[in-house]
């Protein structure tokens, strides 16, 4: 297995479970631990791996955090397209994710705020007032059914017999 193939295999494991240990990954891929450790460190240094985070079910604890998706229509600028306006927007800490889109809008933002008021303030005072932003459409997230591949709505694993042939 080449180093590039091995990196992909490591990432494939870590995106599903960031807590998986070097020992486990080495065993799973039948590779020396030292090599796995070095490649992970290399990917951390070159920012292939940005961070390790938990996928959580917010419904399990009392949280007023508000999340919304915002469609933004804006005017591209000569020479930089949408990059300059995108840069202005993604620097706001409320913006968790920002994507350039095809279809009915130009940019799509994922915003998180402590309260709905925070989000409303951000949209009205910061986002909509930016030069080149023509319009915004805000969609508040009401319920999460699935997050990063995990079903959140109390679905349990079907039981299997303990012993089968």
């Amino acid at each position: 297995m080449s180093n590039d193939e091995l990196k992909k295999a490591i990432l494939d494991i870590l995106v599903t479970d960031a807590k998986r240990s070097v020992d486990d990954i080495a065993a799973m891929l039948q590779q020396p631990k030292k090599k796995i450790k070095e490649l992970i460190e290399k990917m951390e240094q070159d920012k292939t791996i940005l961070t390790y985070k938990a996928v959580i079910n917010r419904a399990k604890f009392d949280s007023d955090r508000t999340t919304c998706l915002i469609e933004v229509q804006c005017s591209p600028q000569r020479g930089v397209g949408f990059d300059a306006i995108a840069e202005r927007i993604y620097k706001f800490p409320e913006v968790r994710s920002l994507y350039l889109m095809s279809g009915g809008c130009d940019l799509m933002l994922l915003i998180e705020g402590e309260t709905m008021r925070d989000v409303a303030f951000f949209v009205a005072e910061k986002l909509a007032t930016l030069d080149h932003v023509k319009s915004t459409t805000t969609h508040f997230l009401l319920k999460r059914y699935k997050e990063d591949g995990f079903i959140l709505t109390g679905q349990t694993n079907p039981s299997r017999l303990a012993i089968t042939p």
Partner: protein
Amino acid sequence: MKDFRAELIKTIPPSGIRAFFDLVIGMKDVVSLGVGEPDFVTPWHICESAIFSIEKGMTSYTSNLGLLELRHAIADYLLRMFSVKYDPKQELIITVGASEAMDIAFRAVLNPGDEVIILEPSYVAYAPLVTLAGGVPVNISLIHGDELVVDFEKIESKITNKTKAIFINYPNNPTGKSFRKDELVRFALLAEKHDLLVVSDEIYGELTYDYDHICFSSLPGMKERTILISGFSKAFAMTGWRIGYAAAPHDVIEAMMKIHQYAMLCAPISGQIAAIAALERGNKDVKAMKKEYKRRRNIIVEGFNKLNLYCANPEGAFYVFPSIKRLPFSSEEFCIKLLNEEKVAVVPGTAFGSTGEGFIRCAYAASIENIKEALRRIKDFLQRHDAL
């Protein structure tokens, strides 16, 4: 009152797995490596196809041979994956799981007293099905010390004028062993030399990890003397749908169909529709599950060898067959003690034939967390018995 049971059925021992299942049932906090089925749920697009068909009122019988569309899909799949060409109208039959395919295959070809060579350790059903069909199973052990080795001279020495067929299953339940081309060619030479039928159960064929699976009937001259048995349970995580199939020469399929039409009529239509969806769009699901099984295999093999319970690296399926010969227990004693003391369920090797003594079957169709927890408990067990 008379004993109404047939004499034949009295000669067949109950499954060793069944006896062990009775011990496990009702116990709490058991970590089970005893489950011979995928721990994945059937991919949703496959389920959804079946649900849609039910909504459309597709709840009828199908042709005895199974939906022609499914037989076409299987023929395309066998050609694409294993380079073997079957006529979907004449050489394929859809059955209720691979188990039914095996049953009707033996019943279709065996005359009373015909012998069938079976390599042990083997899946629990093979020998009883041969007996029920009037045949005589001739078991040949693959065990050489702690290794699994095919002794072709020994097989040939067991061939008599009553031998009708050789039965092979690869990758194998319970050992995970598969066969490479050189071994398959030697089976082919034996079959040709002694004019034998080969019944080849390849239900785990897709779950071969270190090299490509070779379909036995794809070997030159073998399609005419092979009953290929497979199904959707393992690779597509569809155990409960009960859809299997057999591919064989037309006259054999016709003979199998005679039994199937009277005993079963047809396989359930919803399962057949789900199987079509599996073949049309399930390739990426199989790849993803296969990747995960391979990682688990690597973890469990390393784990057992670290515990000094020798475990060969199985080439396929989702089983390992570690040796416990260095312990002062029989396979059954080991499994019962392990269950009672550590609440880890594994299956005694003897459930798969007497040659399985000294081994246990562990399925890695379980999460990595469960595999690691089971290994941790087995380590505690070995330490308590001064075996580590």
